[in-house]
Structures are given as structure tokens and as C-alpha cells.
């Protein structure tokens, strides 16, 4: 089943087409990688899906329902969560409160405080942050702030999770842990789209890869297919 699909998705910044007539789809349960050179429009596409930006033309559907034109909080409550390329944690709030906010406001039904706390604790355990739950988010290391963003996103009970460069700036051990985290999230039944420059991670974790270049989709396929595609090698991977 298609959980997300976009038709002719287009966004201009001034005269520049940041994303141009991109058609894409994501099936339920997949991990889809979104790659491309800097400025290819990957994050812009995320912003269009999550409602941070409004697209100029085209349509995006989540579980068959049109979500273009909806506000970020509405899209979140429908079941789409995200993390950010530059981490956006609530810096002065304790780690636990960061996650609690997701539980309180991210679901359409809402939940009692006790349930929310229990769930937030569970999620901190899941991403490995239980020990620092009372620490202000700003005092965490980069990798832990990124984990916190994941936990906060998961607290909104998403069906689709958008991960924007989760592994950028992490060392090899941390990258391996992040890859393992991504597969554990998928095992919870959550569909994932991830933007990533770490090719090793993309190739081993993703079921399918979409390649953007200058705002256009230039290739799409399995990791093997992408790795051997002449066009992709030319513009992105290099010889």
C-alpha cells in the first residue's frame, strides 16, 4: 500500500526551482533513501511533505488523503513526524519534557499525563537516553540531541518518519548505532524516508533510493541499481 505519494511536486525560491515536477511514492513499511548533491532539493522536499513550506503546484497525499495546504501540526497529527538537519531540540527543557511534548500534542486523541510519561520513558529507553532524562537538552552531545529528536518524533506516534541527515557529523561507531536504530524503528512498523550523505548507511539500510539533482528526480531504484547507474555516478557518486 502506498503510504505517501507526490505528483508533480514543485517549489520555487524566487526564480529558482528548488523542487521541480517530482513524482514519488513510498510504500508502507519501506525505508526509502533520498540522496543527491547539496542543493538538490532534498530538505525542501521534506519541508513540503511536513508542511513547513507550501508547494507551488502538484499534490502530496498521505494514506490517500491530500495533505498539501495543511499546517505542520495538522500533518503531524495525521501521522507524519520528522527530524531536522540542524537539530531543533527545546534547548532549555529537560530531555524528558522534550519527548513529553510530542506525546501531549502530537497525537490526535491526546493522552493522560501518566500515560504520556510512561511512554516518553519507554522511548528514551528505546533511543538510549534514559540516563540523561533530567538533563537540559542543550547540554547533550550532538549524537544525543539527534537521538532526542528521534524520540520526540516517535512520541507523536507517526506512521511515517522523515529523518533529515541523522548520521551527519557522527563518528563510525555512532553511525553504526544510528543505522541499527533506523532498522529498529522500521521493525516497529513505521515507514521511513531518510536523507543521508553517508553512502554506506544508505546502501545497507534502504529498500529503495530516490536521487534528486537540481530539484529533479534523476533516478530511482534498489541500492544496487543506484550504485551502478551511470547517471547517478556522474552527478553524485563519482568514479
Amino acid at each position, binding site marked *: 500500500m502506498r503510504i505517501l505519494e507526490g505528483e508533480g511536486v514543485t517549489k520555487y525560491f524566487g526564480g529558482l526551482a528548488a523542487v521541480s515536477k517530482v513524482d514519488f511514492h513510498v510504500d508502507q513499511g519501506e525505508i526509502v533513501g533520498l540522496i543527491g548533491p547539496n542543493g538538490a532539493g532534498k530538505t525542501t522536499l521534506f519541508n513540503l511533505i511536513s508542511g513547513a513550506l507550501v508547494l507551488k503546484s502538484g499534490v502530496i497525499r498521505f494514506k490517500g488523503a491530500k495533505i498539501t495546504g495543511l499546517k505542520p501540526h495538522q500533518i503531524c*497529527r495525521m501521522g507524519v513526524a520528522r527530524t531536522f538537519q540542524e537539530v531543533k531540540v*527545546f534547548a532549555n527543557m529537560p530531555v524528558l519534557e522534550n519527548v513529553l511534548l510530542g506525546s501531549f500534542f502530537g497525537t490526535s486523541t491526546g493522552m493522560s499525563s501518566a500515560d504520556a510519561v510512561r511512554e516518553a520513558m519507554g522511548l528514551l529507553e528505546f533511543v538510549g537516553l534514559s540516563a540523561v532524562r533530567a538533563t537540559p537538552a542543550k547540554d547533550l552531545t550532538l549524537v544525543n540531541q539527534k537521538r532526542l529528536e528521534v524520540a520526540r518524533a516517535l512520541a507523536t506516534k507517526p506512521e511515517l518518519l522523515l529523518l533529515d541527515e541523522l548520521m551527519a557529523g557522527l563518528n563510525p561507531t555512532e553511525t553504526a548505532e544510528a543505522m541499527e536504530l533506523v532498522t529498529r524503528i522500521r521493525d516497529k512498523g513505521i515507514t521511513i524516508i531518510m536523507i543521508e550523505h553517508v553512502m554506506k548507511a544508505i546502501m545497507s539500510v534502504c529498500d529503495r533510493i530516490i536521487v534528486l539533482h537540481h530539484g529533479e528526480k534523476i533516478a530511482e531504484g534498489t541500492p544496487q541499481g543506484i550504485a551502478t547507474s551511470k547517471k547517478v555516478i556522474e552527478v553524485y557518486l563519482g568514479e
Partner: protein
Amino acid sequence: MDSVRGISKKPFFLGLLLLILILLATFPLYLPGYPVMLLTSILMYIVLTVSWVIFSGPTGYMSLASAAFFGVGTYTSAILGEALPLPIVIGIGGLASFCVALLVGALTLRLRGIYFAIFTFGLVVLIQQLLLFWELHVTGTRGRFVIVVDHTTVYYAMLVIFVALMLTAYFIRRSKFGLALQSIGQNEEAAAHIGINVTLVKVITFAISASFMGAAGAIMATRWTYIDPYIAFNLLLSFMPVLMAIFGGMGQLYGPILGAIIFTYLKEELITRIPELYMLIFGVVLIAVILFLPNGLVGLIQKGWKRVSGGQHANT
């Protein structure tokens, strides 16, 4: 450990609050006259400051519209004061400011930082000048007389507004709504992406904060007996709450209260004793506070408390 301390402290604090409330409620019985008027002024500034902090504290949106909301209340009182009983006039004053804030908030809360501050400042001048134009050219007057109410009644009305405001501020701070408000101040984009309707939360809080300022304006108008647009929409009333909040420190609810009390008292004393130096001394005090007490009086108290309690709670 936190919860244990919380339990042992709670009855003490509740008792202290009750005592303060009883003292405030019986104050006019043993100290009538000028002290009641002074205390009314202090309560008015507390109301303005705490209302300002409810919105601008957690969100970081610096509003300079306090004078506008206060003025709307003042004019409500001038227009309706003779026709309706006082509590209803105060209620309508608050409601009118609530509505103005809803409208203004919906239009301007997308502005951030300095732009929002400048717009809210402009709002005060805009309403003031529009009103002046209207009064001069349509009603053919400049100012209006307000029905006089005795000082004790003004005091009690202000006390009721103050208590209602403190309860509101307390519950906002303790609620999920307050948490959402804080998250907006920390990172608005992230807040929107975890399901918080940031526009709604901001506009509602802005309006709640405005309604208390409006109510305070409605009752204060009766003390002034005569108002015109410059008195009602006095720009100083936009800056005072900001200064008092910074002076007191915004980390705790008692910070702005403390700031307002000391500031108002200082202001009244200086105006009556050394009027020619009043602004100068005021400025020096403010600069000293900003330079040496970045967290306001609250920061100083917490530091002192740590020293007294032997640094046991160094991390709290």
C-alpha cells in the same frame, strides 16, 4: 528528592500565601488613605508586569502593546462607567482588550523578534492617534471625565484582578498549555512539527494577557477622573512591565512581582522626594541591575539561598 522537598514545603507556602492574602484584604482597615493608593499603584504594576510575563516570558516575543490594552480598558470605563455597574465595566474592559489582542495577534504574531516589538509599539501610537482624531473631529472633545469611585473600592477591585491573574498565571505555568508555550519560545518550528498549533497557542495567550491589562485599565481610569488619549495610551506603560520583569527576573513567578513592588515603590518615593533626579536615579538602578544581576532579583535570591543552605542544592 525533589518530590520530598515539594511536599514538606507545600503547606508552608500555602500558609504564607493565605497570610499575605488576608493582610492584603484587611489592609484598608488599619492603613486607609495614601498607603491604600500606593498599594493600588503597586498592584496595578504587578498586574501589568505579570500579564506581560505570561505571554512574553515563555515565548520570547517582546510585546510593547501593554499600553494599548491598558488604554482600551481605560476608555471602556470612560464610555460605559456611568451607564453600567463597576464590575461589569471592568469585565467589558477586559473583554474589549481580549478581542483587540485576538485581532492584532492573528495579524502580527507571524512577525518575529524586533519586528514584533516595533509593531506592538506602533499599535499603541496608532490607537492613541486614531482616538485623538476621533475625539477632536467627531465627538468634538479632547478628553473625557470618568465617574469617580472611592479609593477603597478601586483597591479591592484591583486586588480581585490581581488574585485572578495570579491563579491564571500559576495554572498556565503548570499546564500542558504552558509547556507548549515554552516550547514555542525555544524553537517554534520544532513545536509546530510535533503537533502544537503554535498560532492558536500564541494568540490565545496574548489575548488572555491583554484581558488583565484591560481590566486594570478600566478600574484605574476611575481613579484618574479625567482621561485623554495621551493619558490612557501612555507609552511609558508599555515599557514599565518590561523593565520591572527584567528587574525582578523572569525565571520564577515571584520575580516579576518583586520587581514591580520595588520598582513602583522606588518610583513613587523618588517622584515625591527628589523629582528632578527621579529619572536619573532610576536609570542608574536599571543599568546596575542589567550589568550585575543578569537573572534579576530572583537570581540574587537563589544565589543567596544557596549560600545560606550551604550549597546543598547546588544543582537545583
